[in-house]
């Protein structure tokens, strides 16, 4: 998302951007002020999406997602991926599992009002979940694939699941924005309706939207007293990364989520206070197609994993912003506590070609004309990566060189984005470089990678598990995780999954996907940081960005 788009203008613009000395006059708000006695500068966000804003604020429609969930609409809980899924109560004051972890009961907070003054109640929660059941197009997280029924009585909402579903607390509690029944029940078709004046319980009210900018003002009646202190928030639409980076570097924006090449000179050095923090959240991995001869052999996949110098890939392909990943599949330092020492033993961020060669020799492969060969199987593959991301292409060029030099011949392909995804989903590739969505604990990403039901036959689009891995023992482990709320037991299960990753290498993590986050704390305090990672700081994370906005404090 915050990638460096390849385009005609790109390299020329980098040159221009790196020679900036002074940048245009500061943004002037022609309409603001008056609301508060002490004038407080609006907070402008730098979030390049390559699109003008649609100005429809339906939180269940992906094309409008980043603009309402989190700051206008709120969910029952806030689940923090940077603190191993720590749950903070939001619209629900408490939750409890019962019935062998098949029933989840939320206690709905009282005293909360919608921004139009109507009181919020458990009926709104019930309405929202039934809405998702009635319109599968709105059920982005497929919560009704695991739910069997939802009911409300008094201030309690009870959800019954088809089977033990502990990890689904994240989806039902943390990923479903609650909408007002008194307004939404009047909408004829909520899938196609344009929601131009969103009414939510959140700290910010959308006050003005044009294709070029969205403006929010703090909700004066917000139920969380003392929060949402920034009075005005603007999010201009940026069509290209470079114009947005320039806006950010010049100090017109104090919070950005941008990929900035040479960040030290192009951003940090431009203005006092400019800072960045890139917390890793998921893996960017090689997905070997397990139906391809050669790649269906775990030994070959392990050899590939050992032959890659991940540190070098990170340094050359990503300016070091995305740290090297681990074959265990655990993203650190974010999920450091989940790393199994037994599984991680002997792994390194640099290459171990001697070990890789030993694995292949033991497997019967011999070097023939510089390529490892066994019988009619020659280790020569195509590697495909999204042609829209120049940093990924650079990373994969390094990987191709390393593997080809080692004796596994790689041909790099960089198709256009649509072709890339279409082929990846359908399994029409040999090696592909991509990332899974991840979640608040390492389990979510491992499940996306390894659960056989996420996959599909070759030719049919798979939602994840694109490598087509299927193993009954692994499936059983993944199902077992859902039955326990005990952290120690969960960690023991994840340790076994790590063992699967390092012994079979169904997926080969190369680098760690990070949250792009730049901030300037000169006038605004309490941004998330390594010391206080209270939410994901990237502006495209919902509902995290709204949660962060609620917690920011203006400095005098």
């Amino acid at each position, binding site marked *: 998302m915050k990638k460096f788009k390849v385009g005609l203008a790109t390299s020329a613009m980098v040159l221009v951007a790196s020679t900036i000395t002074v940048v245009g006059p500061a943004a002037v708000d022609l309409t603001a002020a008056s609301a508060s006695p002490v004038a407080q500068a609006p907070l402008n966000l730098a979030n390049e999406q390559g699109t003008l804003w649609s100005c429809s604020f339906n939180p269940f429609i992906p094309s409008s997602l980043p603009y309402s969930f989190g700051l206008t609409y709120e969910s029952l809980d806030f689940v923090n991926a940077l603190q191993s899924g720590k749950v903070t109560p939001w619209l629900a004051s408490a939750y409890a599992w019962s019935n062998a972890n098949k029933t989840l009961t939320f206690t709905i907070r009282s005293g909360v009002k919608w921004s139009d003054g109507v009181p919020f109640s458990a009926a709104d929660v019930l309405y929202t979940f039934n809405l998702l059941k009635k319109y599968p197009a709105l059920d982005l997280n497929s919560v009704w694939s695991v739910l069997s029924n939802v009911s409300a009585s008094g201030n309690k909402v009870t959800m019954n699941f088809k089977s033990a579903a502990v990890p689904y607390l994240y989806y039902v509690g943390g990923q479903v924005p609650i909408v007002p029944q008194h307004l939404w029940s009047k909408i004829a078709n909520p899938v196609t309706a344009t929601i131009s004046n969103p009414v939510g319980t959140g700290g910010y009210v959308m006050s003005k939207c044009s294709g070029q900018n969205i*403006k929010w003002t703090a909700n004066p009646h917000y139920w969380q007293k003392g929060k949402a202190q920034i009075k005005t928030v603007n999010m201009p639409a940026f069509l290209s990364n470079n114009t947005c980076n320039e806006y950010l570097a010049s100090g017109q924006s104090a919070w950005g989520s941008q990929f900035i090449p040479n960040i030290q000179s192009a951003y940090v050095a431009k203005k006092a206070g400019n800072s960045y923090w890139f917390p890793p959240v998921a893996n960017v991995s090689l997905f070997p197609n397990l139906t391809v001869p050669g790649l269906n052999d775990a030994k070959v996949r392990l050899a590939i994993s050992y032959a890659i110098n991940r540190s070098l890939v990170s340094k050359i392909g990503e300016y070091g912003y995305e740290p090297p990943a681990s074959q265990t599949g655990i993203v650190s330092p974010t999920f450091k506590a989940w790393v199994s020492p037994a599984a991680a033993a002997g792994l390194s961020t640099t290459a171990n070609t001697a070990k890789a060669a030993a694995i292949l020799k033991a497997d019967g492969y011999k070097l023939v004309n510089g390529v490892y060969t066994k019988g009619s199987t020659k280790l020569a593959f195509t590697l495909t990566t999204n042609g829209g991301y120049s940093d990924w292409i650079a990373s994969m060029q390094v990987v191709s060189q390393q593997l080809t030099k080692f004796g596994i011949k790689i041909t790099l392909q960089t198709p256009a984005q649509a072709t890339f995804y279409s082929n990846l*989903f359908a399994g029409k590739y040999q090696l592909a470089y991509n990332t899974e969505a991840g979640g608040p604990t390492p389990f979510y990403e491992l499940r996306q990678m390894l659960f056989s039901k996420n996959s599909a036959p070759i030719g049919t689009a798979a939602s994840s598990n694109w490598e087509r891995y299927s193993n009954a023992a692994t499936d059983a482990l993944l199902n077992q995780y859902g039955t326990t709320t005990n952290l120690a037991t969960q960690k023991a299960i994840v340790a076994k999954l790590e063992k699967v990753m390092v012994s079979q290498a169904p997926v080969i993590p190369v680098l760690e996907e990070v949250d792009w986050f730049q901030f300037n704390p000169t006038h605004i305090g309490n941004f998330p940081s390594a010391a206080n990672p209270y939410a994901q700081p990237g502006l495209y994370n919902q509902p995290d960005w709204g949660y962060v906005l609620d917690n920011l404090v203006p400095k005098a």
Partner: protein
Amino acid sequence: MRFLVRRLGFLLIALWAALTVNFFIPRLMPGNPAEAILAQFHGRLNPSSLKAIEVALGIGGHQNLLSSYLEYLRNTVTGNFGVSTSYFPVPVTTVISRALPWSLGLVGISTVLGFLFGTALGAVAAWRRGGWLDNVLPPSFIVISAFPYFWVGLLSIWFFSLTLNWFPTLGGYTETATPTLTWGFVGDVLWHAVLPAFTILLTSIGGWILTMRNNMITVVAEDYVKMARAKGLRPRRILWQYAGRNALLPNLTGFAMSLGFVISGAILVEFVFNYPGVGFLLLQAVSAEDYPLMQALFLLITVAVLVAIFISDVATALLDPRTRSSR
């Protein structure tokens, strides 16, 4: 009359051909709009949402190409362009109507200015053949016209907004301002339009200068111009009333065509300047595989160009009787 009917028939056939190509070409692209939306989120969206998005957009399942083609033709005639998939659920007409004024204003005005200045300069250059204007303008504009739009745009941003700090670097107006009909806002819009308009003007004016100058040189050698000189008419009158008017005719068709293209905006200029116009919309529609938006935009451009050519044909026929009987 027969001429008019023939031109009208040609217009309709060209329109139908364009409509058909417009329908089939985007569908040859791999992938679908739902995958494009998922791709936009770069893996941040739960993978299972692909199905939800497909249901919302009404894709997936097998659709008969022929029946959707007929439905498309019917919808086009009735002006029902559907809902944009990249700006879902906003209707295509709303999306376009937001962007169109920006492109019409920026590209329209700079095209007209380019034509007027270019034609005038070309005429004067040819009139004073061998003069300093004639020695300097055509060669330098041959060089400048060869520069790509975006490169000139980038250079002018670097020089005028980053070094001299005279103009803003991006946007149609100060991004946090609210569009209103006040002098302050209109001034803001104009201030933001200067650099992109200058870029378009600089790179397009050369073509007008060159063609006008070449037309003029031929016309100036005509007998009636000599006659006018012999009569002792004032040079200025000969330049504009006798030579200029006739030399202008071939340029009119070119001008009509570029007026038609105004509606497509200027893709690269709008991209470089972050200008919220149709050109950028087109770029985005193609990359997001937004078929409804793409189709409506291409249709708009095609119709505008065809109608502009038709009008210029008719105008030329009215102005110049010779073209009416020509085969």
